[in-house]
């Protein structure tokens, strides 16, 4: 029997660019069941009028002078990349047609 969370897992896997094998989908859907069930209390709490807390700090804008300074050289930044061409990160072709 397909778990009710199976479509959610499949949808999230596509959104998260994560290939998931069919047998993993079922297992992950069961995990979703258990985890979301354990977290259910959160959905039952009265939070009306409570302002969302988006971070642990009340940050203030800090302005600094916009002055040029040295940055990492291109070669060093490209060095860890799996594939590089002509000084750029290389990825599979994304549009059809002649280059």
């Amino acid at each position: 029997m397909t778990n009710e969370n199976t479509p959610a897992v499949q949808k999230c896997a596509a959104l998260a660019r994560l290939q998931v094998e069919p047998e993993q989908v079922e297992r992950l859907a069961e995990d979703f069941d258990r985890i979301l069930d354990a977290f259910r209390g959160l959905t039952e709490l009265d939070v009306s009028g409570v302002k969302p807390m988006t971070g642990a700090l009340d940050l203030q804008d800090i302005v600094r002078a916009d002055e040029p300074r040295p940055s990492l050289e291109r070669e060093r930044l490209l060095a860890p990349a799996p594939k590089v061409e002509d000084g750029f990160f290389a990825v599979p072709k994304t549009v059809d047609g002649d280059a």
Partner: protein
Amino acid sequence: MRDAHGLRQSILAGERTVLDVARATLASIDERADLNAFLPVEAEPILERARELDESLARGAAEPGALFGVPVALKANLAYEGRELTCGSRILSGYRPPYTSTVVQRLLDAGALPIATTNMDEFAMGSSGENSAFAPTLNPWARDYTPGGSSSGSAASVSAGIVPLALGSDTGGSVRQPAALCGVTGFKPTFGRVSRYGLVAFGSSLDQVSPFANSVRDAELIANCISGADPMDSTCLEHAPIQPVERANLKGLRIGLPAEAFGDGLDASVRQKVEAAIEALCELGAERVPISLPHSEHAVATYYVVATAEASSNLARFDGVRFGARQEGDGSLAGMMGATRADGFGDEVKRRILLGTHVLSSGYYEAWYGRAQRVRRLIHDDYRRAFESCDVVICPTSPTPAFRLGERKADPVAMYLSDVLTVPASLAGLPALSIPCGTVSSDSGDANLPVGLQWIGPALGDESLLAAAKAFQSNTDFHLATPPLRREQAGA
């Protein structure tokens, strides 16, 4: 090597060279390879750094830094230029960052000897060290038990006496919980007091670089070196570095005891040790204040919604384009990314990315993520109210002592509940530390396992929190207990 202050003094007094210290540390890493505390360590750059430090001392070049010659182990999510940085994940196998994190740069500036890198739960996701893609770290007190996580290797390396200091990262307790389970001191500063430039991000509203040591005094020493404003991290506060403050005694310290942290889920032996430590605090002049943190029962759920949401976004950068391994998949761009991530991430990381994507997705956002942000404020406000009547909140760090390897690995909910006592302070951004308060016998009687006492202070109260904990340690000897020697050694 357990005392950073003493080690530095002995080097400056000429009793040993930094090279001696470096060699001894490398030998000790090899000797305790059974613990899997370290990922492969490259010896030559460490020896070279040690020689440079010895030469600078001989030249009398400059005032020796506060950590001169002291080895500091680095969790595998802190960038140190040229050193492999895996985050405990296969997706970053072979990745050598082209730059150095601010905290590691500050260690270098203070004359330290950074040791890269320690084992960890993959991308800091885990509470046992078992989610490392390489090997589980073992607890130096009993090798059938986990050291806690996610900073498993950093905790174990300090506990085993391999290094006197280590850095980890604490998102929901990833330094305090393994410190408790390994019998060492772990200190999470107020969110924002330590730069995160060069820390691989997991949950950006929670992550904080945090040290391990064998005493609060040593934790304070390294915290002083790594904290303070950083133009490279816009979430780092403009405050001055954490300064050492002394407190003569604990007279009049009001210790808040949250009823919720001493409930049914607390292991009886842990309760007994923590209550004995509270008794010791009171004998030293502290005063008990009963408090309530009514929303803490929702802290685990709130934390796992917020942290997974942030992780799903932060980990999008591991897509086979700019660093790490790549799998070609079906040859398309999306196929390459999907295959790279499927191959490179372990089960728990995948589970959290998917859960985080779910709680942020259209139709579920408000029910889960939006709600968790609101409950986070309620948890934060509970502490604000509590600190009106007390100076420090005291509770256990972990509801149980170390658990057996494999015991919780198959059950994500049981593993998440390991964090029940550490996540509230993380959500509220508060400074918190864990110090040892004795050992208990394991259920089967085969091991003595450490218990951690957690101290939580008001925001930006790092200095007074450390001062009080130092005063406690100067009157007690819990922190001097060390794990038994390795069986083979003991028998030799």
